[in-house]
């Protein structure tokens, strides 16, 4: 953020703070609510950054409000302390619940169900608890805070929340969350500890939501089960964020402002029609519902992104990227591969012994053993369904082996998660490429580079160098989803390289490429080897492997049936039988 913008922002804040002086109580009240709900939607948004949709954030909202109110009513504790206590409590609850949820692998609607049931449990707990005033709730009797002060608090929360989101989106943590949201498996394979990332985001989100809940309690001066733990609280947060745009800084503010504007407009219309307060409320909710449906149907990206693309279309000058500035390229610069101290080493870099993997009785790999030595290119071929990808999935920690072991640099990889395997220096690509489709090419690679780089600047430098190396530098600002198949494969290379690995496992990189493209990819593979990186590649297209590999293994029905130099392998009658079926091809 430039200094000019900071000054402008500070001025804006000061002006906003001055509003209560001249405005009616009604206006201040509305503004307070807008600020508060913007903050809350922003808090919800933090969790949504990782792709998780919570239907029960009311649980944390209510915890904040109830903690503050209970401490004040029973022990006379000042709400300033209650505020912190509520946030800590909500964070702790979120940690405990989601730790178990993520460990159990709760997904999709089951996760949504858990969040919903959490809020509902708290609501019924509050209704049943005499200490919490049952369905009457608690009133903060004797507590008084001038409305201007509550407004200032809400305004501060909103500004702080937006700054936090702004910062998050530009931090390594934000990058990791984005990766998790786009494709959890690919993120994990690129060294992102998806479990911790998700847990951190949810705990942060819960604590922030509780802070908003406290502020809400101070505004109303009471807490009550339905208005604090009820479904409509959760719904409002979801509504505002979706309307504005999830994962954006301004989305919650825009969404909430539009909603409140509509709310007031409907109130005016309702007055004209004389439908009464209940009627107005019902109409408001109907319109909210219609908005939700329309947002999904017409602008699933949210208002902010749609507006952004309009701005870019009509005002292209503003959108040009700063990246046009010339950039000095340092080929093979400081962050190159680790010194390849190959010569002295004779122990295998990767040792696979007796590996067996069965899926519900179906044996995909049977007693597979081989060694990979530093600096070599080892090809593994076999017909479709031979178990090649399963082999990679076991080595890279996606599936645990049924029996057998994998040792990397003498250490067992058993029980490591894919991200831990990646951090050890063993990267992989996927046969079905898994780019983070909505991120730019550069950002895709940065996520890999964050495995080693300490900050974003270093990660970006490293990524640009890698993109140069694979020949994708010109496409660095393109959206990954818009790349051609060949470029997607190169992007997979770049992401794997960015993690600074010692070994890369390449899963059928040639599939779907024409011969010219295969040649280009093969050249890239050789150059990667020349950087001192060891490669294990599985391939269905035999031709591609033969020219590249130092050694070739042949897998059929999960069993290694041949091993040797490429020239020997193509003459092996057993291999020819496996590939061409039945008896040898007529000469």
């Amino acid at each position: 953020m430039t200094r000019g913008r900071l000054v402008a922002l500070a001025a804006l804040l000061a002006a906003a703070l001055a509003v209560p002086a001249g405005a009616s109580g009604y206006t201040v009240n509305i503004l307070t609510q807008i600020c508060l709900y913007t903050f809350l939607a922003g808090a919800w948004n933090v969790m949504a950054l990782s792709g998780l949709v919570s239907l029960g954030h009311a649980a944390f909202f209510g915890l904040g409000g109830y903690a503050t109110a209970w401490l004040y009513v029973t022990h006379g504790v000042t709400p300033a302390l209650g505020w912190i206590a509520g946030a800590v409590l909500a964070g702790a609850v979120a940690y405990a619940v989601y730790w178990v949820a993520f460990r159990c692998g709760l997904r999709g609607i089951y996760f949504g169900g858990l969040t919903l049931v959490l809020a509902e449990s708290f609501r019924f707990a509050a209704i049943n608890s005499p200490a919490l005033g049952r369905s009457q709730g608690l009133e903060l009797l004797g507590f008084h805070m001038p409305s201007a002060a509550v407004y200032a608090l809400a305004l501060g929360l909103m500004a702080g929340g937006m700054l936090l989101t702004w910062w998050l989106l530009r931090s390594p943590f934000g990058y990791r969350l984005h990766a998790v949201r786009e494709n959890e498996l690919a993120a994990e394979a690129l060294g992102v500890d998806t479990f911790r990332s998700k847990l951190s985001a949810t705990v942060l989100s819960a604590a922030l939501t509780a802070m908003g809940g406290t502020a809400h309690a101070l505004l109303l001066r009471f807490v009550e089960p339905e208005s604090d733990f009820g479904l409509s609280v959760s719904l409002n947060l979801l509504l505002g964020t979706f309307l504005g745009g999830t994962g954006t800084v301004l989305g919650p503010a825009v969404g909430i402002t539009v909603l409140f504007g509509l709310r007031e407009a409907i109130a005016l219309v309702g007055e004209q029609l004389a439908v009464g307060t209940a009627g107005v409320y019902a109409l408001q909710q109907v319109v909210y519902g219609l908005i939700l449906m329309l947002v999904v149907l017409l602008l699933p990206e949210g208002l902010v992104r749609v507006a952004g693309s309009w701005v870019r279309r009509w005002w292209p000058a503003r959108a040009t990227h700063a990246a046009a500035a010339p950039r000095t390229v340092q080929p093979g610069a400081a962050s190159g591969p680790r010194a390849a101290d190959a010569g002295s080493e004779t122990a295998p870099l990767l040792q696979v012994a007796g590996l067996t993997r069965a899926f519900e009785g179906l044996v995909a790999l049977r007693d597979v053993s081989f060694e990979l030595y530093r600096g070599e290119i080892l090809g593994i071929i076999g017909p479709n369904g031979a178990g090649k990808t399963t082999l990679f999935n076991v080595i890279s920690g996606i599936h645990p082996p049924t029996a057998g072991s994998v040792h990397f640099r003498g250490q067992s990889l058993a029980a490591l998660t894919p991200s831990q395997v990646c951090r050890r220096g063993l990267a992989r690509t996927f046969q079905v490429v898994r780019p983070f489709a909505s991120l730019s090419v550069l950002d895709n690679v940065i996520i890999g580079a964050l495995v080693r780089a300490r900050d974003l600047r270093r990660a970006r430098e490293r990524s640009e160098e890698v993109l140069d190396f694979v020949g994708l530098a010109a496409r660095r600002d393109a959206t990954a989803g818009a790349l051609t198949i060949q470029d997607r494969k190169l992007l997979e290379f770049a992401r794997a390289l960015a993690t600074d690995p010692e070994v890369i496992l390449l899963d059928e990189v040639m599939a779907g490429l024409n011969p010219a493209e295969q040649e280009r990819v093969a050249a890239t593979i050789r150059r990667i080897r020349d950087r001192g990186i060891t490669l294990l590649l599985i391939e269905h297209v035999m031709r591609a492997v033969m020219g590249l590999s130092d050694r070739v293994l042949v897998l059929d029905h999960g069993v290694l049936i041949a091993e040797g130099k490429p020239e020997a392998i193509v003459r092996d009658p057993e291999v020819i039988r496996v590939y061409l079926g039945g008896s040898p091809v007529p000469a």
Partner: protein
Amino acid sequence: MLLRVRDLQVHYGPFQALFGVSLEIDEGEAVCLLGGNGAGKTTTLRALMGALPISGGTVELLGQRVEHRASHELAAMGMIHVPEGRELFPSLTVLENLELGCVTPGTRRRSAETLAVVLDLFPALRGRRRQLAGTLSGGEQQMVAIGRGLMGRPKLLMLDEPSLGLAPVLVDAVFATLERIKAEGTTIVVVEQHIHHALRVCGRGYVLEGGRIAQEGSTADLGRSDRLRAAYLGM
């Protein structure tokens, strides 16, 4: 001419997967589509079957233009697909899977009769009628997939890699079955990577490479072709 495909083009989003594939298949023929992974074989079959949008070219089935018909309409015309990876309904029984092959009311009326024929062809399934399809072995699943296709009384049966993941003995069995089906007059298009088998059953073949037809001809010629051998073995 049973099926005439001219200049078929298919895009996946911004990517072109097929660049003008042309095929001609006569009644009673057995034709194979060969080529490496990603060459466009499965895409071709799925596009013909109406399961992928066709962005260019024409498809004539029994003299009618059909390139924009939905797959259920094509199936009703007698074009039946045995998909790659079998695509069974794993939580339905074997019998139910077979019955669902009768996609038109006409075939449903004669389903008992067809079922008898199919069970004759695959006697191993007889004892497993009530078993859930998902619990079968790979070979048995492939039999169910082919049997399900036959239940629709196909004029044109299109099989996508029927030998995928099967042990050699079972591959032999599958191709022996295809020969019987062909002998009974059903037209067959088969995508296969066991070239040798494919060439034995089929009279003609097409070799796909990078979404284009690289070569076509009688299987005798293709079998002698260095190009085909090279495409698979890299020599």
